[in-house]
């Protein structure tokens, strides 16, 4: 018999696919069906979609190993997210987990990626987790930031402050890019927020080294996708510095080292 989760995936709309997982948009819970005695309508039963991240079977791995790895990765991603939530980092909430099938259901974030808002162009198909870009076809010359009521600098400040909150909780994202950040559309109840997504490579560490590398990866992402990125990234760092307080010093020193040598540590000696 077909599993419930694979039937759910069949009903879902594909969004994007990477090497590790496919991402879908789906409806999990039905809207409330009222019995005849309680017919009054209520605004709270509008259905909300969820995002499904499906780590499909890898043909090149032994099936047993594949299941174990997939399960561990789903669990790891969920744990990083709940830790972020408890520390007040803006991340999508968890909606369902089927670790056996390799599926993680997350809150659907209505908004645009920072990459899109900074004019970084369309998402590449190699993104692991992205938003749907429904209106991408039409050429919208108007500044998309207007709709969100925030300036570029506001967004940079929000990025710095979210990363600082995450690093203070000793969570390393592992893949900070402008496509892994969504500015939530300013609709109630949550309003405009910078939301960090895709914790597939996240892990826990207290080391200044790991936090510095996390920042360095983002710096490289900025310079490779956005023109004139130096002042942008500088405002990210200044917001980060402000939020980190005394921990900034050691991370800053490390960041300078990392810039000289690159993301990987030298293995010489």
């Amino acid at each position, binding site marked *: 018999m077909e599993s419930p989760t694979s039937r759910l995936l069949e009903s879902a709309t594909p969004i994007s696919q990477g090497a590790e997982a496919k991402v879908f948009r789906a409806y999990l819970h039905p809207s409330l069906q*009222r019995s005849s005695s309680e017919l009054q309508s209520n605004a709270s*039963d509008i259905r909300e979609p969820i995002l499904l991240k499906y780590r499909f079977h890898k043909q090149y791995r032994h099936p047993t190993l594949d299941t174990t790895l997939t*399960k561990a990765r789903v*669990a790891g991603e969920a744990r990083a997210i709940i830790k972020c939530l408890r520390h007040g980092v803006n991340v999508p909430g968890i909606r*369902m*987990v*089927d*670790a056996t099938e390799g599926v993680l259901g997350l809150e659907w974030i209505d908004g645009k990626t920072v990459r899109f808002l900074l004019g970084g162009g369309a998402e590449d198909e190699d993104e692991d987790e992205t938003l749907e870009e429904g209106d991408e076809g039409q050429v919208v010359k108007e500044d998309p930031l207007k709709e969100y009521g925030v300036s570029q600098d506001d967004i940079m400040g929000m990025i710095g402050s979210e990363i600082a909150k995450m690093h203070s909780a000793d969570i390393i994202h592992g893949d900070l890019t402008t496509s892994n950040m969504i500015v939530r559309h300013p609709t109630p109840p949550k309003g405009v927020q910078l939301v960090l997504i895709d914790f597939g490579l996240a892990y826990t560490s207290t080391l200044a080294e790991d936090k510095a590398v996390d920042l360095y990866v983002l710096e490289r992402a900025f310079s490779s996708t956005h023109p004139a990125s130096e002042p942008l990234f500088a405002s990210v760092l200044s917001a980060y510095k402000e939020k980190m307080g005394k921990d900034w010093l050691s991370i800053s020193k490390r960041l300078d080292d990392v810039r000289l040598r690159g993301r990987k540590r030298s293995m010489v000696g």
Partner: protein
Amino acid sequence: METFRYTHLPAAHAHAYVALFDHVSNAAHLRQRIVRASQLEGPEGDHEREAVNFAFVDARLITSILHLQTAIYQAILAKIQGSLRTKTVHSEILWALSPNNNITEAIKRFGVSDSTASLIVVRVGPPEMSDIEHRMKTLVSGDPLPLTDLTKLTDWFAVRKCYKLNADPALKAPGLSIAQQQLAAGEIVVSTVAMKSIAA
């Protein structure tokens, strides 16, 4: 009573029938009846167990319909996949809601207790269980409410204590309004229930 219909689930567990009652007066009796049903033997026991074959959830600890739905869904999923950690899909709902792995504690905290005043009754089953609403109403003496009133009955103090949210920086950030705190708490609670099956 409301019905959640899951079209992608096999028919035997495709529907969740849910009713909310306030001012419940027979909680103590109900609890005793459930305990007794579990101990009776023979056909009489089977009959009595079927009569109380529901999940009884203390409504005070439920923060939103999504919170309840998440627990119900994860319980049904476990039932279908044969990975139940408790004996029935209904006790599994209580276990899914609980922030720790102790089954007895989950039932004590989230189930019906002698002092329970507001109660959610859930029955997972096939479509067309026509007499279910009547059975719920004969079982529970209280005022039936639409499920959307659920959030009016939430005891946020108890929720915070139960899910150990008081130490969380997410709720301690300066300048958060009560509504913002509840939004953050609700998100943590739903996520905790959703990932119960893989919690460390």
